[in-house]
């Protein structure tokens, strides 16, 4: 943006350049001051002691705590993603049905689960499971079921928006050459819709991965649980280092997924395989090349 015009700022002339340079200097000083305040607080509370960071140089901490925690998170996210995609495909297509008795109930299910706060749903399922299925450990089941119902409902909206984004001429042409209803959907609409909705699907999977951390609250043994409960309990005082390490892992995983969504978005924008542009489903925010699902 610097040195060229944007919607907000014209290309800077000599005076504006000088002003920008002064602002840059002031901003750098302000940022350094804020960082110093944080640093001072950390130092005052002894957060830079080698002692509390040492466990993270030890392979044992990784093999015994962090990697099993990460696997717990990925297991919940993987299962949730698979079931949510199936749920989303089924209900998204059901909402597009020509039959009112399929369309209306499917719409009611999707709108309801989209509106329920996810944690309430997980708590409810967590308490419901033992009284229906008998005793046992239902943390994973409650978490995956909650993630499936909520994210599946959002994905159903993505599927519906994707199919609708294919121009009408495509299905009209397909009917005109004599294809049947399911052939039109299977051969013409879906292949084009999938390309258009890929970025939105991937950005919803970022939300799903982030929401696995809710398992911490029902004591599902995931990365957050190891980082905030188990590691600080074993290594006294290591809470902040543990939080920073697992935070970096979460942010890294999500940024990789987000980058994939951005790449898919660019690809689908210039793709000739589809007549539909990349879609922005209800409840998502699109800025430039990225679709960010709001959560």
């Amino acid at each position, binding site marked *: *943006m*610097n040195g060229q*015009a*944007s*919607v*907000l*700022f*014209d290309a*800077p002339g000599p005076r*504006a350049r000088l002003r*920008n340079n002064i*602002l*840059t200097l002031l*901003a*750098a000083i302000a*940022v350094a001051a804020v960082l110093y305040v944080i640093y001072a*607080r*950390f130092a005052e*509370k002894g*957060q830079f002691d080698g002692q509390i960071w040492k466990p993270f140089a030890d392979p044992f901490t990784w093999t015994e705590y962090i990697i099993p925690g990460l696997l717990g998170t990925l297991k919940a996210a993987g299962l949730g993603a698979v079931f949510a995609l199936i749920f989303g495909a089924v209900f998204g297509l059901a909402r597009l049905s020509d039959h009112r008795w399929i369309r209306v109930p499917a719409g009611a299910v999707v709108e309801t689960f989209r*509106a*329920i*706060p*996810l*944690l*309430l749903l997980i*708590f*409810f399922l967590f*308490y*419901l499971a033992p*009284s229906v299925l008998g005793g046992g450990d239902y943390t994973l089941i409650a978490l995956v079921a909650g993630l499936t119902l909520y994210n599946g409902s959002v994905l159903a909206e993505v599927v519906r928006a994707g199919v609708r984004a294919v121009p009408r001429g495509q299905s009209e042409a397909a009917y005109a050459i004599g294809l049947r209803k399911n052939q039109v959907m299977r051969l013409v609409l879906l292949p084009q819709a999938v390309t258009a909705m890929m970025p939105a699907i991937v950005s919803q999977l*970022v939300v799903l991965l*982030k*929401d*696995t*951390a*809710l398992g*911490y*609250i029902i004591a599902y043994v995931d990365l*957050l649980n190891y980082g*905030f409960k188990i590691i600080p309990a074993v290594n006294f005082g290591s*809470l*902040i280092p543990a*939080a920073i390490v*697992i*935070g970096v892992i*979460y*942010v890294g995983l*999500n*940024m990789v997924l*987000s980058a994939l969504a951005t790449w898919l978005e660019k690809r689908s924008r210039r793709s000739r395989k589809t007549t539909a542009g990349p879609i922005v489903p*209800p*409840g*998502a*925010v699109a*800025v*430039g090349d990225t679709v*960010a699902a*709001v*959560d």
Partner: protein
Amino acid sequence: MNDLIKYAPDLLAGFLKNVQISLVCAVLSMILGTLLVAMRVSPTPVLRAVGTGYVNVVRNTPLTLVLAFAALGLSDTLGVSFSQEPSTNSFWLVVLGLSLYTATFVCEALRSGINTVPMGQAEAARAIGLTFFQSLRMIILPQAFRAVIAPLGSVMIAMIKNTTVAIAAGYLAESAFVMKDTFDDTGVSIPIFIGIVIAFMIVTLPIGFFTGWLANRLAVAR
């Protein structure tokens, strides 16, 4: 059904806490989000980098981690405290964590609004001699604001639903905790769950309808 009637006062008190958190967070996250977007579109590289870095990191962090860190890290370990009273302290920790988190989405929603204004509008404004503040006030913001209503509505609805995660910051008064507490007493109760869900819908659905209606009404014809 009897359980719902019996526990209704507790549940309502819990739900009102959710509403309280939502109201404070709505104001704070709008202010913070506006500051962030001002940084992200500024002509100052340092501010842009800080804004972009903050948004990308916080947006990709689970809210549960943010809130648990606010309580265990910020308050317990680093000694940041808002009040001697534990429940008041955790209330403000929830507000802090949720506002910091929601501000990133507010920022992205506002930025998407600015991005919808075509470059030609700004060029035309400069060509007729409008100053920076004139073109901002008369050309860019009126168009950007309209494109922002629907996404901001979604962000606020998500924020209201996220108030239930307050339990991760050790705030034990809002409806998710009250529901869990009640289930510990009575066992699972479907009417109680449905009651709380309906209470949330009463707040969130009108926001969705209103912002959707307003966005359609004010949409810029291009």
